[in-house]
């Protein structure tokens, strides 16, 4: 009786610690979404700087530099977070072709994030806006194809 109970206990605890329900394994995809959200927020803050009625244009330039530095940091973190996406792929039950597509999109996201980081470090605001749109397209493509599989 005790052995059966122990066995049941072991089975239950092992089920609770199974990868599918461990919340930490769901973190990488959420992380990249939060970095992406933060990037857009920072770009919005740059756009609304012109509405600050007392800041001189010179002071607005200083504020833009502060925000572009933050964008560079967040873009670098977004690029790193794609490692988590790639690590998650084997557990999604994809076909080899789907795996390849997902991997390709993740690597594309990484490359585009790095390019955004470079543009932000150079304070090229117009180019940053274009890169964000490109990242948006990549994210939407991946979400349309694979997001439901991560549930």
């Amino acid at each position, binding site marked *: 009786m005790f052995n059966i109970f122990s066995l049941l206990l072991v089975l239950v605890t092992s089920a609770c610690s199974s990868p599918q329900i461990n919340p930490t394994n769901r973190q990488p995809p959420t992380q990249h979404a939060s970095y992406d959200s933060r990037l857009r927020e920072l770009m919005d*803050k740059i756009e*609304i700087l012109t509405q600050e*009625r*007392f*800041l*001189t*244009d010179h002071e607005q*330039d200083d504020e833009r530099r502060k925000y572009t530095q*933050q964008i560079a940091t967040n873009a670098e973190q977004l690029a790193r977070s794609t490692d988590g996406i790639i690590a998650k792929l084997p557990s999604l039950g994809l076909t080899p072709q789907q795996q390849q597509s997902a991997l390709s999109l993740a690597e594309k996201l990484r490359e585009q994030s790095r390019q955004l980081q470079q543009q932000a470090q150079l304070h090229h605001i117009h180019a940053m806006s274009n890169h964000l749109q490109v990242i948006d397209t990549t994210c939407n493509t991946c979400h349309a194809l694979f997001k439901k599989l991560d549930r």
Partner: protein
Amino acid sequence: MPRNTFKTLVVLLLMLFNQNLLADDQTLSLLKELKAEIQTLKTNAEIANNRISELEKQLAQSQKPALVTTGSQQNAPATNNPTTPVTSNAETTVPEKPAIRVGDVKGTFKIPGTDTSIGMGGFVKMDTMFSNVSAGRDKLGDQQLVFSQIPVGRAPGEHSQTTFLAKDSRLWFKSFTPSNWGDINTYMEFDFYGDPATYSYTPRLRHAYGSIGNFLAGQTWTTYTNISASPDHLESGTSAGSLSTSRQPLVRWTQALNGFEIPIEVQAALEAPRSRVWVPNSIEKNASNDPANLDVSPVADNFLTTPNAERYPDLVARVNFKPEWGNLSFAALGRQIRYTQAKTGLEAGSWGGGLNVAGKINSLGLDTFRFMAHIGNGAGRYTTTTNTFEDAALSEQGDLSLIKTFGGMVSYQHWWNKQWRSNLTYGYAAANQPGFVNPLLNQQVQSIHANLIWSPISQTTLGMEYIFAERELVTGQKGELQRIQFSARYSF
């Protein structure tokens, strides 16, 4: 061999031969077609190659002047200007005009031949204001919020006022030049508030400064005020409780501190000393203090004088914290107020100062929370709008008393979406006036601003704002202003 068999064989052979002939014909025909196509492709390729050669020659011709240098310019530093073309034996070259290039900072272009980027911009702003009470003929108080000009009581002729104004329009120029000593920036900005008369548009210098690296000199916002914490209003003044939006000549050093998790910078400045002192008529009589010139009713302007006797500049120090969630600043002011009596030559002076904390904190989404809080002794000039409180008061005995002031402002900016936003601001400021001063001086002021602003694109802003402002005199009498303002701003 029987004859029939022979004939059959011959016929079979002929048939076979004909088939072969037929196959050969088809093949030949196909070969001919292929040959013709190949010939056509060859001809097209030749034409394309000839065209490419021609274009390469043209390109080489156009680049030729830039590749040729004179002996004196070989060691010159690299500039944007193409070098002077050299006349060769074989051909003459046409001097090229340098192309205009994008500058190193947003909204600028480079001056050809230099590393300097220049830009200009500004906006046209039209304000329409409906006030429940007028500040008087050609008074600044009808054009922006000026607490000292809010009528107290009712005087003959006081009535509601409509004002149409474009004085808040701006024009600015800026430049940027990199150098081994640090970036060199210059900035000049003008509006049209040079003359308080309502429909007189005299240009006024708002900013005129230059900076190299960490050192700035010229006229700009006083270091004592964290201007980024100012509320987002349509009216060109500021609220009660805000620090003054003064611009004055100054020299300032800004130093970023490294090694901290949060970006921190410290600023130290020497600024133009200018004080406002209340002086009794027995010591100095001027137009605003002469009882013969005062209105009967208490709807009079300030009674303050500018002694212009300062010996020391105003000393300001500020620490700025710039985390990702906004910015926070702490500032300290030290200044000497001094007055010399013209008749007797007696001098009275005292050191005073102030402290303030201000910040702009990011809230949900694009929303921000802004605040200022300050306390001072002899810092009235840096408090709220122009001439609300004096810096000091001189008694009949010639003793100088610094005026203690305190106040604060809170403002919340909410973005409904990326085009629509609103701001709600409350401010309050008060002064401890000595008992011997004119009882018509201000004791306390407060204001509320509420607005709705629409910016369909970044270059256009339309909005409506409601302002409630109140001032209370030493006597306890109050004056109230209610104003609705419509504004349209077009930036370029």
